Structures are given as C-alpha cells and as structure tokens.
C-alpha cells in the first residue's frame, strides 16, 4: 500500500503533475506514513529520475521547472510533518548567484534539493555582491558555500569570493556550478567541488559535509 503512494509521488514529480503529487502527499499523511520516507523514497527519486531525463536530453529546462513545482507542492505538505533531525544531513549552506548574473534557475533547482535534504539554506538570491557571500558565511558559520554563474562574463567573480572565504575560514567547503564552469576552473580557483547539475551538486555537498565532520 505504502509503495503505491511512493510510486505516485515519484511519478507525479516525473510527470510534472502537481495535483497527483498533492493527492499522494495527503494520502501519505492520512495513512500516517513517515514524512521523511515519503520525501526521500518518493519525491527525491522522482527528481533523480528527472535529472536522468535531463541528462538524456529527453527533458529540458521547462520540463525540469515544472517537475520542481510538483516536487515543491509535495514538500510543502510533507515537510511540516518531518521529525526534526531525522536522517537529515544537518548542514548549513549559503548559496547564491554572483553579481552581474541574474540567471537563477540552476541555483533554484540545487536549492530545492538542499531543502528536501534538511539543510539549513541561506539563499542570497541572484546578482549577489561578492562580499555578501563572505559576510553571510561568517555570520552563519556555514559548512558549505555554493556559487552559481550562468555566464562566462560573471564566472570570473567567483575566484575572488573563494579566496576571501578560504582566507577567513579555511574549513568551509566551496562548491561552484553553472554552464560555463568546468572542473579545471574549479580546481584552479581552489573550489572543493564543481557541479554540472543539481543532482551532482547535492551528492557532492553531502560527501563534502560528511568528510568535514569526520575530520573534526
């Protein structure tokens, strides 16, 4: 019975069917299914499948955005019922799109995955002045900072942010992403991670935070 609900959640996300996700999420609660399981075994696998379809070029950005809407529809219902700390990654992340860049679609998808995973997210939005990242990192003592840029012309600003944050807080991990970013650039600029897409960003972030905890 509960597997059927999980499948409905997953399928609802994949088929960008908000109504189906809402119905399934409410059904999950009515049956006293664990909210955490509904999210992680229902919605998240749906989004992982969406990521795969995007990679296979069956889905493109419009489809992905609609799937994200469906996923949020489910998260809004299920999240208030999640027991605190349960299985969450418990990380704190500061994220935003660097100044000069107003393209935030990629960042928003990544944010959603952090939200779903129980991260405490400080989303600075888009067109964010470089110093704001440094300030916010210090203020929140986040384990992770994610920088996004969609244009070559704004990507170069990331280098300075990485230097400044690392100077003040060498333990903080920094992940960069966006269309023009390459693995080579990430390593040259001293970033700890590079994400070509949202799925990759989330997996990398969780790995990084666990390694951080095992060291300290």
């Amino acid at each position, binding site marked *: 019975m509960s597997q059927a609900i999980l499948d409905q959640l997953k399928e609802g996300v994949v088929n960008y069917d908000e109504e189906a996700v809402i119905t399934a999420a409410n059904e999950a609660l009515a049956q006293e299914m664990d909210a955490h399981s509904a999210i992680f075994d229902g919605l998240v696998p749906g989004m992982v499948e969406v990521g795969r379809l995007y990679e296979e070029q069956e889905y493109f950005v419009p489809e992905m955005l609609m799937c994200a809407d469906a996923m949020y529809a489910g998260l809004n219902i299920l999240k208030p019922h999640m027991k605190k700390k349960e299985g969450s990654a418990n990380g704190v992340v500061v994220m935003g799109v660097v100044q*000069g860049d107003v393209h935030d679609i990629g960042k928003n998808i990544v944010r959603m995955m952090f939200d779903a995973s129980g991260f405490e997210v400080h989303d600075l939005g888009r067109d964010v002045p470089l110093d704001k990242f440094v300030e916010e990192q210090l203020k929140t003592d986040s384990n992770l900072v994610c920088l996004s840029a969609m244009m070559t012309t704004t990507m170069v600003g990331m280098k300075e942010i990485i230097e400044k944050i690392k100077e003040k807080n060498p333990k903080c991990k920094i992940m960069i992403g966006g269309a023009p970013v390459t693995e080579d650039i990430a390593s040259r600029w001293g970033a700890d991670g590079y994400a070509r897409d949202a799925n990759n960003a989330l997996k990398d972030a969780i790995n990084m935070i666990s390694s951080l905890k095992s060291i300290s």
Partner: protein
Amino acid sequence: MIDAKKKDVLIRDSNKERCVMLSLTPRERVLNLFAGKEVDRPACYSGMGNVTTAALEEMGCKFQELHGDAAKMARAGASSYRLFGYESAVIPFDLCVEAEALGCAMNPYDEVEQLLYPTIKEKIIHSEEEITTFPIPADLLERGRINVICEAIRLLKQDVGQEVAVGTYLLGPFTLAGQLMDLNDLFKLTFKKPDKVNAMLDRLADVQIGIGKKFYEAGADYISVREMGATTDVLSPKTFDKVIAPHLKKIFAGLPGNNILHICGGTNSVIKIMNECGAGALSIEFKNDMVKTRTEIGSGPLVFGQVDAYNVLVTGKSDDVVKGVLASLDAGVDAVWPGCDIWPTAPLENLRAMVETVKEHGANRWARKKG
C-alpha cells in the same frame, strides 16, 4: 624625383599588384563574402562585444562609462582594430539596449569596482496576462540608448569605416523576452502555452526589425542576431522549431542586410533549423561539432566561429590560441570569430596571435577556397 607620368605608372602597377594579390581591406574582405564575391582568406572579426581592458586603460575610462556615451563607445569600438588588427569595429558592449528602450531599468554597476556587464534590474512584464498586452512605445526608436548606438555607428564610420566593417547586434526575440519577464515563468509558459509565447515573440520580432533597420540606416555593415537564451541546453529541438525559429525567420525576412544568426552551446541538434532561418551566415561556438554541421547543412552556408572566447583567448597561451584558430579553420569556418563576447582581460598577445594566425594560414586552410 618622379615626374607625373612615371608616378601614374607606379600607381597603376601597384593597383595591378593589388588585383593580382587580391589585397583587400578588412571591410571588403568581410562584405565581399556576404555578397558572394571572391575573397582572399577568411576574415578575423566578431559580431559580439570585444573591448579589452588594455583599450580601457589607454582611454583612461571605466567600462561603465562606455554604455551611454556615443563618443567613448565609438573609440572603444575601434580599439580592437587599432590594438590587434581585428577586422571589424563592433558596438555596443552590453545586451540591455532593446529591453531598456522597451521600458526596463538597466543596472550598469556604476558603484562596483570590478568589471561587470550591465543587467536588467526591473522588468516590465509581471503576469501571464501581460505577455501579450505589454505596451510597445510608439516612439520606441527614440528611447533608451538607441540613438546613442546610432551615433556611435556614425562616428565609427567616419573614424575607421573605410578600413574595417562596422558591426552591431540585436538579441533574438526569446532572449529579449527573458529580460522583460521572469525567466522561470517564460520557460514554463513556453511549454504550457506556446501559442501565447509565440504571440509575444512575434511582437518582439517586429521590435527587432525596427531597431535593426535604424542601425543599418545609421551605417552598420552587418548585424548579429544573438538568440543565446534558446540554447540546446535549455530548450528541446522541437521547441526551438516551434517557438524560436518562426520569429528568427520573420526577422531575417524583414531586415535586409548582412545578418548573422548566433547561438552558443552545442548547437548541432538545431543547426539545420538555424540554417533555415534565413540569415546570411551562422555563428557557432566550439561546442558545435563543425564536421557534423557541414554534413548536416552542406558546404554552401557561411559559418563563422568557433574560438573559445574564455578558455583559449583569456586563460590560454599564445600556442593555445594558434591551435584554436587552426582548428576552427580546419573545421571549415568562413570567418574566424570567438564563440562569445571577448572577456576584456584577454591578453593582447593572445588576440594578436588570433589575428596573425588567420592572416598567415587563412588562405591555405580555407575549405571554401580549396573548393
């Protein structure tokens, strides 16, 4: 001392040599190709912004000062020809001209130390309803910085217009739409309500035809239409065909002149559709596999590209630039263009290497010339 008669012979001889060598000015080299006339080699130029920090230092001015000042814009536009022999002069340097004329507010980042390209900070469309009803001002062509661009074109024509081709650019309707409204909403509507989005883009195509005509009247030799918001990373080839291509076709049909269609990213899956849009030439970046492109569209269409504007021109060494240029030539481009605006910190020696490599090897390696 040479008497008049002898001098005349000398001039005729040098003219003769000119004919034999087919020594063209950069402007002739650029324009003859569009006209289907014989050309000695591919030109090395661009249809996108290419001011350098070297030029800005020489001018003693900040990037931000260029956008609204026709004289400074024109000086900076001519700088690439003067500093490294680029065969064009292109203005402006930002992508906000049309959106601003339509009523959006631009952020030039006046207060920021680092060099940033302006962005749109206030949009004019705030609901789905408005995408087909937003007002297009009757005096659009007098608004924003459109007259600044026209004045800069005129100044460039007087300054270097005999020697190099003067170019400018327009955004494709979809990319422009993404500045007028929330991009997330635009993408979703493209999928959910393509008819509405098509109606919006049809109006924007008219806007771009009007602005483009004014740029040509001011003296522009060529115009690139940059539809980089509709790359294959974000939209399916099917959507490109149904929602993007019809409006590009409308622009190229309604705007006589030397038009180039530029789209960045891996454009192989849409190159055939791009080729059917009616532009005089296509511009692509290095992510496009040119061999496949030529198989798809044949050797006829003019294709410009495909030097990596950042990873080669900015962070590469001169050797990398030579390699990048030769690779583009061998792949079969008809003019060597960077795949995007040249990021201003690109070292002059790299840019010189780009131009010199085209001069030295362009004729020998040009697939079209080889027949």
